[in-house]
């Protein structure tokens, strides 16, 4: 169970970035209390969409790196 499962360094970086993004989402509630319009889109919605897309990018890169060099 606890045998060594070496993870590529790049995966660890992505994991760290992912965790930071996750905590950004967790602590984002003050930014969502009011909105302005940005190109016709409410800023709160746009912010959550951007955060979600950033998380997807990190997650997909994580999958690719894990497949190429993971356990």
């Amino acid at each position: 169970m606890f045998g060594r499962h070496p993870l590529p360094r790049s995966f660890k970086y992505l994991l760290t970035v992912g965790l930071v993004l996750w905590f950004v989402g967790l602590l984002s509630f003050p930014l969502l209390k009011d909105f302005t319009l940005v190109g016709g889109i409410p800023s709160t919605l746009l912010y959550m969409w951007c955060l979600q897309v950033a998380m997807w990018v990190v997650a997909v890169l994580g999958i690719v790196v894990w497949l190429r060099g993971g356990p």
Partner: protein
Amino acid sequence: MVGELERTVNAAVVLIYMVAMVVVGYLAGRVTRRTAEDYYLMSREVRFVLLMFTYIATLQSMVAFLAATASYMTHGVAYLILPVSQGMLMTFLTLLLGWRYREFARQHGIISQGELVYYRYGTRLGQVLVGLAGYLFNLAYIGIQVVGMAYILWALGVMDYYAAVALVGGITLVYVLMGGLRAVVWSDFIQGILMLLFFLVVGISILVPLGGVSGVLSTAYNYKPDLFRLPGPARFYTDSVYVTTYIILPLGIWLSPHLFVRHYFAKDRRSLVGIPAGILLSQAIMWVFIAPLLGSVAEAILGPVKQWPIARSDLAIPYLLMKFAPWWLVGPVLVGAVAAGMSTVDSQMLAEAQLLIRDVIEPVIKRRLTDEESIRYGRLIIAVTSIIAFVIALFPPPLIIDLMVGIAFAGFAQFFPALVLGMLTERINKYGVIAGLVAGLGTVAAIQTYQLVYRVGPIGYFMGVHNGAWGLLLNVPLTLVVSHLTRGRR
């Protein structure tokens, strides 16, 4: 509202789909070998594409297909914390731990969630706790899904409510009994594709006539600007609700028994990636863009919910479809919604048998059942569990259902120290895990009982904090402290 021709065509489409599911179950049953590992885990040989679609179909239930839009209608942008908190975190959890679960399960012949606790910590009590808690929380969900599917078929005039409960529940039961996991996986493959495809069709056929993204948003924020700021139109998402829901939901969902066991049957490491791929793909299609847009505009187009023919917010998609799409599209969309429900229920039924057989019955009688006994008793458990769930669906007691749904993810999240932390470090031992599980599950149950007895709402939250967070607040420190104090003891 619905003409005779439309009703007949919609019913025919749904019935054809049901027959197709039975055929899948029959064909799967013909090739299923008579071993427990094959019946419950398809001999651990599920490849990438099948694993991806079975995970999608199981993860995205009736809630995703219909109620997500309703929830965005009620809570607005706040509800985006569901996908934002889950997708990436669940992906990394699977990449970090899913592989270990898979290896460990193969090494020890593990089939159920609780067995992992036994083989990791050597505690039968911990195994039984996980098995029983998983079984009870899952049971309510099966009932909820059947209620949802029957309700939608009845509300749109396809068939009588009781006939719908019998049909939907009965068909699912039949193909699970016949083919075990092989039937579940192959039907999930079909149901997952139907669900995603029809959800896209729904989105496009409603959003395009409304002027696309910009048209929908300008209508929505002129109608109800609270949709785009916290705490949302229902004033529910306070700071503490936001933070604790964000933490509990991804853990509770990822640790649900019927999803968790999917790590066990990936054929190899490449196949395992089907799980995160399924999470991300289904989120992108169902949760992040289409559902929030439909939810934000539904009341602006259809008027307040209480003025709808049937005043239920989860009927927003069918009513929007009737307004903007051709009538013949309603039947296929119904199939998509029913597919979403059935594909979750089938996996839950199978998981219930796994939990009771391996985590409760075998530890109690102190012997391993033979393959034949395991399949026979498993089928019996599936049938009995289904009957209980169908009775819940026939006479839905709203308070109890709300109660169970409210605590389900709160309960599953209590497995976090045992099944996540304990898999990352050897410092956690069985004493810590048992103490944590008892404290966490006990706290959730106690708060929920208090809320039920004294009618203190909302269900699932106490003093503005998710009940699962109250449980983890005791569970995690207790697991760590007791493990530290009892280190070195066997």
